C-alpha cells in the first residue's frame, strides 16, 4: 500500500518537462535510427497517384502551391513527388500561389526539381516552354474565382518574371481553369483546396487532386467522398505514402524519401502522445480514488 501511495505521489508530482524530453527524443532518435516499418498507401493516396498517372503524356497541369514555412515539412515531399511524377509523364506545369508567404519557397523548389533533372532520365524544364511560374496574386478567394474565368486578367497578363502570356508557349490554349485536364493543389489551409472546391470545382467541372496538412484532412474528406476531389493526401503520412508510390514508379528507393523518413518520427511521436494521455488519466483517476 505504501509503495502504491509512493507511486501515486510520484505520478502526481510528475514534471511535464519529462514529456517534452520524451517528445524531443521521439523526434530525433527515429531520424538517427530508422525503424523502416512498411507503409501501405491508403485508397485516397492511390487515387491521387492514379489521377496523375492517367493523364495523357504531355498534358499541361496547373499546380497551386499554397504553403508557408510552417507547413513545409508536411507538404514539401508531396510537391517534389508530384512534380517528379508529372515530369515523368512529360507534363507541362503552370505554378501559382495564393499565399504571400509562398513565393520564395516555391522558387527554391522550382529550381531544385523543375529547372534541374531530379531523377534518372529526367531533364531540366525551360521556363516559358515547359513550365511557368505565375507567382503570387493577392485576393485569396477572389483570385480563385478570377482564374476560373480568366487567367491573364487575374495575373495582369504576365508571369512572375514579367514575361507577357503571349510569349509563353506553355500557356497557349490555357486561358482559364477549365482548360487544364488536372489541377494539383498543395494546400496548407485557407485559401486552398476547400475554396477551390467551393468556388470553382463544381461550376467548371474541374478535376482536382489535393495535398493538405493533417489538420485540414477532416475538412476535406467530404469533398473526396463526393468526388469533388479526385484524390487527397492529408498530412505527412499520406504525403510519405504518395512519395513511396512515386519512388516505386520512378524506380527509386522508397526508403530514401524525406516523407518516408518522417514516418518513423510520426510512429514514435504518436506513441508518446498516447503515452502522455494514458499517464495523465492514470494520475487523474488515482487522485480521484484517493
Amino acid at each position, binding site marked *: 500500500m505504501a509503495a502504491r501511495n509512493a507511486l501515486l505521489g510520484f505520478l502526481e508530482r510528475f514534471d511535464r518537462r519529462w514529456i517534452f524530453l520524451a517528445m524531443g527524443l521521439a523526434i530525433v532518435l527515429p531520424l538517427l535510427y530508422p525503424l523502416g516499418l512498411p507503409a501501405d498507401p491508403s485508397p485516397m493516396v492511390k487515387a491521387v497517384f492514379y489521377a496523375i498517372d492517367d493523364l495523357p503524356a504531355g498534358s499541361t497541369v496547373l499546380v497551386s502551391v499554397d504553403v508557408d514555412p510552417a507547413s513545409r515539412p508536411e507538404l514539401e515531399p508531396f510537391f517534389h513527388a508530384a512534380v517528379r511524377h508529372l515530369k515523368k509523364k512529360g507534363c507541362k506545369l503552370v505554378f501559382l500561389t495564393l499565399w504571400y508567404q509562398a513565393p*520564395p519557397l516555391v522558387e527554391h523548389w522550382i529550381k531544385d526539381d523543375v529547372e534541374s533533372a531530379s531523377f534518372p532520365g529526367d531533364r531540366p524544364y*525551360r521556363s516559358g516552354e515547359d513550365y511557368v511560374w505565375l507567382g503570387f496574386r493577392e485576393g485569396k478567394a*477572389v483570385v480563385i474565382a*478570377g482564374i476560373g474565368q480568366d487567367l491573364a486578367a487575374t495575373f495582369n497578363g504576365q508571369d512572375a518574371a514579367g514575361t507577357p502570356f503571349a510569349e509563353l508557349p506553355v500557356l497557349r490554349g490555357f486561358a482559364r481553369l477549365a482548360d487544364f485536364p488536372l489541377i494539383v493543389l498543395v494546400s496548407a489551409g485557407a485559401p486552398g483546396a476547400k475554396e477551390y472546391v467551393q468556388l470553382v470545382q463544381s461550376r467548371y467541372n474541374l478535376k482536382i487532386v489535393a495535398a493538405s496538412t493533417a489538420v485540414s484532412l*477532416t475538412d476535406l474528406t467530404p469533398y473526396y467522398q463526393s468526388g469533388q476531389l479526385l484524390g487527397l493526401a492529408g498530412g505527412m503520412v499520406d504525403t510519405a505514402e504518395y512519395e513511396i508510390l512515386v519512388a516505386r514508379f520512378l524506380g527509386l528507393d522508397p526508403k530514401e524519401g524525406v516523407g518516408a523518413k518522417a514516418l518513423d518520427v*510520426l510512429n514514435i511521436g*504518436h506513441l508518446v502522445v498516447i503515452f502522455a494521455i494514458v499517464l495523465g488519466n492514470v494520475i487523474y483517476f488515482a487522485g480521484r480514488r484517493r
Partner: protein
Amino acid sequence: MKKQLPLLIGFLAGSFAIAEFYIPAGIVRDIQSKLLEFASVLAAAAFVLGGINVIQVNLPIILHRRPDWQYKVVLMLGAAAMLLAGIEWHSLAAAPAPTQVTERPTGTTALAISASRDDAELSVDNKPFVPLGSGWREPVAPGAHNVAVRIPQPGYSAIAMPITVRAGMELTLRVPVRMLWGPSGRVYTWMYDHVFGPCNATMFALLSFFIASAAFRAFRARNLDAALLLGAAIIIMLGRVPIGRAIAGWLPALSDWIIDIPNNAGRRAIMMGAAIGAVATSLRVILGLERSHLGRD
C-alpha cells in the same frame, strides 16, 4: 446618401454576382471578370491599410514606452526591412549590360563562356548545371545550342539563350550577373530563408511539445463523451501511422471508418449549416437588411 449609396452598390454588385452564375453570355462574364479585378485591387489596397494600422497601433506604444514596447520596435524594424528589401531598387538603376558575344575564327568549333561572378553555374544544351568558375571552354558541334547561366543562390539575374556556333569559329560569351532586389531579390530571399522561414517553422514545430503537454494535462476521460473522444483520438493516432498496423491489422480500417463515417457525417452537417448561414447572411447584406459592415455613423 452616406448609407444609401454603399447599400445600392452592394445590392447591384451582389445581385450581379448571383445572376452571373446562371447567365453564360460573354458580356456578363466580362463584367464579372472586371468586378473580380476590382476586388483584387481592393484586396491589395487592404495591405496598405494594414501597414498603416500596424504603425497606428505600435508607434504610440513605442513613443510612450508602454509595456513590451521593445517587441514593437522589433516588429516595426522587421516590417520596414522587409518593405525596403521588397522594392525592386535595381529597376531604378541603369539598364544591365547585355551579354557580350564575340566570334573569332580559330579553326576549331568551340564555345567559351564566362560570367561576371565566379560562383555562377552553367548548363549547355539542357544538361545539368555545373560550376562555371573563372570560365568554361569546350569544342562543340556546329549549329544551335542552348546556354543557361545562373547563380545557385536565389536573388540574382539569370540568362537562358539560344546561340548558333558556326563551323571553325569560337563563340565567346561574357555573361553579366547582377544581384536583384524585390520579392525575388537576394536580400529579401535571404531574410525569408534565414529569419522568417526558421521563425515560422519553429513556432509551428513547438506545437508537437504543446500537444504532448496538453495530452498529459488536459485530455481526461471525465465523462462518457470525453472517453469516446479520447478513445477515437487514440485509435486514429495509431491507425494513421504504420506502427498501428504493426500493433493490430484492424486499427487502420477502424481509423478510416471513424474518419469516413462519423467524422464526415458531422463535418457535412456543420458545412451545410454554415453554407446556409452564409447564404442567409449574404442575402441580408445584398438586400440591405444587414448593415453592420457600414459602420455606426
